[in-house]
């Protein structure tokens, strides 16, 4: 068991170097990078400034590596500080884009929209959010608690109170639902 665990530890160290759960923030110029770094570090985020991966063909010569799962929270912080990045992308696959495919299910009196792993359902007549399902990040049960029972117009946008990529996916479903339910 000792040897197998030592071998396992080596694999884990290698995984850590690959940064599979990191993202990068791309900015227009270096002074924005420096300002964003200062803001995020002051807020306690585990970030670092580095050179961009070769796939990135735009922005300046520096990017900020950040915990990808918490993209929604970090982007909100930077927006509030007036230093939004040009783009936020996964560090290992910078060419990946957020989902832009929506699955729609019509239940008659109810309509469900799915974006990635998140599903939002409203009662058509009242536009009340009756259910939120899917997702795996801890803000999903919290978002459900805050949104279910409210109308699309009363409910806070997931981007305002969510924190993770699941919250971001719910925001996309929320926007699509509003679009489909608008007169």
């Amino acid at each position, binding site marked *: 068991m000792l040897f*197998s*665990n030592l071998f396992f530890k080596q694999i884990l160290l290698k995984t850590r170097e690959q940064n599979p759960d990191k993202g990068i923030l791309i900015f227009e110029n270096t002074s924005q990078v420096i300002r964003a770094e200062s803001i995020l570090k002051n807020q306690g985020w585990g970030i670092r400034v580095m050179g961009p991966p070769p796939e990135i063909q735009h922005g300046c010569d520096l990017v900020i590596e950040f915990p990808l799962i*918490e993209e929604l929270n970090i982007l909100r912080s930077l927006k509030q500080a007036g230093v939004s990045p040009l783009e936020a992308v996964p560090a290992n696959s910078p060419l990946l884009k957020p*989902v832009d495919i929506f699955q729609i299910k019509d239940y008659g009196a109810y309509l469900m929209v799915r974006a990635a792993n998140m599903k939002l359902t409203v009662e058509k007549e009242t536009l009340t959010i009756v259910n939120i399902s899917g997702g*795996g990040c*801890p803000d999903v049960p919290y978002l*459900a608690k805050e949104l279910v029972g409210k109308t699309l117009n009363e409910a806070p946008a997931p981007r305002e109170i969510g924190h993770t990529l699941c919250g971001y996916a719910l925001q996309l479903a929320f926007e699509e639902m509003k679009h489909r339910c608008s007169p």
Partner: protein
Amino acid sequence: MLAVVGTVPDQGFPLAAGKVTLKGDRIYIQGHGITVNRGTPALLAAAIKTAKTLGGPEPFGYLIGDIGLGDGSRLLYEYLTRHIKEHDFGTIAFHYVQPDVDWHNRVLLAVKEMTRRPVLIADAGFMYAAKMSGMASEYDLFAPDVGELAFLADENAPHPFYTRGFIMHEENRVPDMIARAYSHKNASRFLLVKGKEDYLADKVGIRATIKNPAEETMEAIGGTGDIVTGIAAALISADWEIDKAAAFSAWANRLAGHYSKPTPATQVIEIIDHIPWALAELFLGKK
């Protein structure tokens, strides 16, 4: 004994480790209570209902409040690395935690140092971390829905939010996505895929398809996947074989849902309340 690891949507909920009980629509651990809505409390409620039906013990929980900031999850991860080895759990179900590869790996290493290797189940955020870390094959059971299966099938995606479109389009080709997840070693020993039809699969292929009773509205109801994982975890903890427990749990969830006469507005506690009837009927072999 079954251990369940997860978070609850209450920022003030402290880190608690101990036996979990269910009273009405609330679960309790070390004197702290929270309403069963969806997420880990729903998994625990389903596991408790199942254990009670089988005459088994209530599960042991490791819970903390986290609303997505990740602070609670990191405290929980850290606690697990120090304390999980103090117990001899037969089954551990990891659930809603902030996905973090480094912390996931440290917890997995601590689990590997346990005296007896437990059956490992991962769902929700912990399953995302397990896939991202490249350690999916260390687990015995994942329970993704179709959107999460697409993420497992996409070897490049770090989260379902970034699943590539050509894979998302394969929604009606679940068997292909299952095969793709196994071919890239991004699946556990068994996969229970929850959807319009539930699939139990392993690396060889699909072993069972559960279609009935069919209640199409179940997909919209938050927490139904948590019920499936909770029932499966309780059955595995009662020494059921993993594949049989997984298929049975999908069936029991469908039947409990059917009894609740669901609409898209049904809340998960209404389905959880029907679990004992569903299990009793299935145990009697009426279905």
